[in-house]
């Protein structure tokens, strides 16, 4: 990238060496001397009254140090920050509400003893009828998951823009469809874990692999009934998060056990715990209606969601809100109507997963857009181009698009995939060929769930050796945020990347920030780091200017050195300047401080009509999937996937490419293979053996491209990428299958069984499936190197249509 030393370079992760040598200590690797081991007793029943709990036998087991139940926990219910529906307790008090509900916990000298003690706790239950389907839960007389609410509706939202009914009346064509998304798990490889330890002053330290150290401190303080200041969270590296590591009930339970035993306690989920009692993606039943003219003008859209909350409420109201409206900002549609019901069932509670509701809604919306195109006989890519949002648009929801490369993404994805030649060319043999497109937009720097403040803060300390340490509260969950921050700081100050380290979050020493969700890290955290770097640079430049007898504005930083522009031999090492600063101030360390306050750009949406610009920037994408459908077996082979993303500016091309391919792998899983199957509330496939995450041979050929739009609000113009890359994948595949066989799949995942059944209904084949397995990709792996990408440099190209 012209003009930059470090931005735009594919530098390795700053912690790559620690990771590749096995030396990085993750949350679940943490040990403290003398620590005990904790284990949770979970409900075996989906809905039952708890009549009695007898822990006497378990307490008599040698090595058991403490047992905690609801009797030891605060009685006031709590929820997560920014949400208002307090329905959680540390342990089930009178009732269990799902298989996996926490009933008791044991701390023992070792894990074997803790597990044995769990089996000795005697709980008497009175089973109650359960409700497992959100539509059943809405019926008159359905069992109530939380009686005190009077119904199973946990949250209801309804809002609109323009006049949808009028649009309907004016429309030439209306498409309406019902779409269903399944319960899928984040599948982070490292299970949740925690070590808790109290000090003599009555403060507890939680060592956590967590995305949101400051936010969990808020909810855990409520859960434990203590003030926030009495909790210190020390973040440990995460073995993946994907939205799933924003909260976990074993963390405060572990704190409770540590308090009771007055010893450090460690707890970790088993993989089975993860599948029965974590916070998987909120499943939705989505009714989508698109109204428009026969020339392809979109006039209106309505959405009605029934979302399956599970037994307790985490961030689901915010997730449903995002599903109800984010996709409205993708195309120019003036008349909108949204209605959502979040419904309790006796199932595993649900929560955030990369995409935060937008993934579910995009599957429905982008499938429906395709069907609308089919109804009016228009190329679905042309329909998207015709209605695509453009830079400068203010959408009906009040979103201000400071940058928007959607049209360029569509064009480039079409060109790369050979759209024109391949579309509508299914062939005639046993294997039918199809190509489909889907787009998405997402937020970057969203704050709609945290009303307290916008933005982010950072500070950077530069020691006497010229090494910088960056402090921020936006976390790295493996996506490389620490490396992004190091690049931004190094670029601005003039350091080498290897001279910059980024501290993990410690709530005692880090700035107060909301952590990583809503694609906040790069935009908000990056801007804060940039501001702190600017402040550090200013101080260094003052020293350098004095020493070099030059004007401060003539000083340039590069490669660990400050020099006078045009006279590179008049220079001083940054280490020397930092040392001079320190020695002139009795050992103080040069510290740059920076805050990014988004200045009336961002606002929490209106609580009733949900209007407001919720994010500092909005990334866009288009993906094209090419598939082959086997008419005899129902197997869908994904031949190739093109992903073109508008990410503002590329900070690190290797990291960006890795984010896209990794997200697409999750998107293919969401589309084709992944589903936590439940029966009467029980998860039937609670292991990686039976829950099909894509493996290396399952990946299709990939082509990754980037459109750099240089967002006015992003640091160096950058926008987020981690979440949006997952959103278009499932609808692109569904649309490709439609192109191949003319069948619209409304329910995920699209398994060979479903495909074969649909083919039979269509009367094409009557044979039994021969085998049912995950889609197999072509072995060859290829991508467009970002630096060769035609849209890489400068501004997006104009339309070529």
């Amino acid at each position, binding site marked *: 990238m012209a003009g930059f030393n470090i931005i735009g370079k594919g530098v390795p992760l700053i912690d790559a060496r620690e990771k590749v*040598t096995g030396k990085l200590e993750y949350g679940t690797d943490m040990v403290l001397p003398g620590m005990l081991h904790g284990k949770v007793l979970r409900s075996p029943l989906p809905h039952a009254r708890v009549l009695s709990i007898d822990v006497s036998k378990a307490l008599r087991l040698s090595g058991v140090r403490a047992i905690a139940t609801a009797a030891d926990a605060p009685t006031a219910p709590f929820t997560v920050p920014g949400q208002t529906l307090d329905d959680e307790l540390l342990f089930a008090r009178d009732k269990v509400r799902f298989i996996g509900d926490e009933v008791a916990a044991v701390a023992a000298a070792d894990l074997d003893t803790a597990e044995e003690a769990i089996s000795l706790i005697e709980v008497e239950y009175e089973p109650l009828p359960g409700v497992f389907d959100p539509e059943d839960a809405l019926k008159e007389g359905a069992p109530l998951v939380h009686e005190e609410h009077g119904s199973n509706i946990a949250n209801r939202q309804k809002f609109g823009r323009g006049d949808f009914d009028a649009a309907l009346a004016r429309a030439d064509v209306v498409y309406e469809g019902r779409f269903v998304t399944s319960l899928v798990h984040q599948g982070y490889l490292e299970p949740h874990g925690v070590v808790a330890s109290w000090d003599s002053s009555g403060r507890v330290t939680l060592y956590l692999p967590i995305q949101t150290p400051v936010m969990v401190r808020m909810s855990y303080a409520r859960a434990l009934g203590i003030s926030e200041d009495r909790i210190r969270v020390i973040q440990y590296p995460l073995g993946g998060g994907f939205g799933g590591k924003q909260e976990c009930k074993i963390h405060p339970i572990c704190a409770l056990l540590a308090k009771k035993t007055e010893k450090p306690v460690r707890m970790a989920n088993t993989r089975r715990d993860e599948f029965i009692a974590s916070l998987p993606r909120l499943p939705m039943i989505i009714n989508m209606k698109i109204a428009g003219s026969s020339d392809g003008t979109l006039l209106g859209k309505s959405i009605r969601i029934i979302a399956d909350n599970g037994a307790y409420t985490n961030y689901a109201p915010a997730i449903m809100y995002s599903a109800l409206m984010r996709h409205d900002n993708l195309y120019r549609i003036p008349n909108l109507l949204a209605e959502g019901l979040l419904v309790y069932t006796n199932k595993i509670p649900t929560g955030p997963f990369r995409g935060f509701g937008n993934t579910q809604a995009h599957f429905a919306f982008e499938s429906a857009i395709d069907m609308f195109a089919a109804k009016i006989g228009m190329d679905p890519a042309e329909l998207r181009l015709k209605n695509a949002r453009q830079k400068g648009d203010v959408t009906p929801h009040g979103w201000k698009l400071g940058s928007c490369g959607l049209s360029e993404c569509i064009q480039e994805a079409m060109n790369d995939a050979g759209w024109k030649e391949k579309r509508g060319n299914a062939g005639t043999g046993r294997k039918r060929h199809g190509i489909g497109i889907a787009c998405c937009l997402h937020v970057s720097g969203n704050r709609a769930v945290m009303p307290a403040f916008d933005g982010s803060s950072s500070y950077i300390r530069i020691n006497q050796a010229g090494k910088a340490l960056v402090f921020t509260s936006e976390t790295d969950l*493996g996506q490389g945020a620490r490396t992004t921050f190091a690049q931004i700081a190094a670029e601005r100050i003039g350091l080498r990347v290897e001279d910059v380290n980024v501290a993990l979050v410690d709530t005692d020493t880090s700035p107060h920030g909301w952590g990583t969700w809503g694609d906040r890290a790069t935009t908000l955290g990056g801007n804060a780091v940039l501001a702190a770097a600017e402040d550090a640079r200013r101080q260094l430049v003052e020293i350098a200017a004095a020493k070099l007898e030059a004007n401060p504005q003539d000083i340039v930083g590069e490669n660990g050195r400050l020099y006078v522009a045009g006279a590179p031999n008049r220079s001083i090492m940054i280490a020397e300047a930092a040392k001079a600063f320190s020695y002139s101030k009795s050992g103080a360390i040069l510290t740059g401080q920076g805050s990014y306050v988004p200045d009336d750009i961002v606002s929490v949406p209106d609580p009733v009509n949900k209007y407001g610009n919720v994010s500092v920037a909005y990334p866009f994408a288009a993906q094209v999937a090419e598939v082959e459908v086997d008419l005899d077996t129902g197997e869908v082979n994904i031949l190739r996937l093109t992903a073109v993303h508008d990410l503002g500016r590329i900070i690190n091309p290797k*990291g960006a490419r*890795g984010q896209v*391919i*990794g997200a697409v*792998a999750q998107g293919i899983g969401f589309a084709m293979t992944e589903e936590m199957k439940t029966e009467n509330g029980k998860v039937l496939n609670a292991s990686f053996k039976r829950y099909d995450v894509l493996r290396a041979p399952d990946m299709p050929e990939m082509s990754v491209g980037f459109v750099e739009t240089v967002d006015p609000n992003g640091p160096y113009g950058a926008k987020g990428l981690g979440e949006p890359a997952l959103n278009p994948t499932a609808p692109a595949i569904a649309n490709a299958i439609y192109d191949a066989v003319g069948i619209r799949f409304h329910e995920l995942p699209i398994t060979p069984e479903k495909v074969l059944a649909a083919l039979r209904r269509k009367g094409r084949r009557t044979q039994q499936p021969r085998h049912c397995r995950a889609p197999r990709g072509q072995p060859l792996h290829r991508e467009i190197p970002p630096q060769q990408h035609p849209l890489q440099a400068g501004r997006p190209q104009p339309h070529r249509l």
Partner: protein
Amino acid sequence: MRYEITVKVNGEDYEAYIPARRTLLDFLRDDLGLRGTKKGCDEGDCGSCVVLLDGTPVNSCMVLAVEVNGREVTTIEGLAKGDELHLVQRAFVEQGAIQCGYCTPGMVLAGKALLDVNPHPTTTEIKEAISGHLCRCTGYGAIVEAIQAAAESMDGGQRASGKTGRSD
């Protein structure tokens, strides 16, 4: 029931008196403090805990520690020589094959074991070699490329022509 075992781990001899039910994974992590070997599922499904047993990759959660009596184990901690990374490790760093890094130790050892027996693998062979390993971050692309690059760099050391591994 406890047993006495003698095992060589990363070139060093260890003697231990361990319960029969202790897995090799727990033995490495909890008894020897070698926590570079990761626990992802404890059921043999994810490959995070892969180590080399007499040079062959195994899921250490599916092996009992008593079974390795008299044998040789290599974990991720035993791969680099001092500060010098193994070629597979170096390729993982350079190719961007690491995100969260939790699968990395197992993936690196699988790559090394593959190249030990097949110095010129095709991409299909690489994908098969790591098919027992889950990675939820990368989508595998960069991992396959890293193992390919490691094969090529090993090649480069041996052959002047610069001709590299086969493609499919």
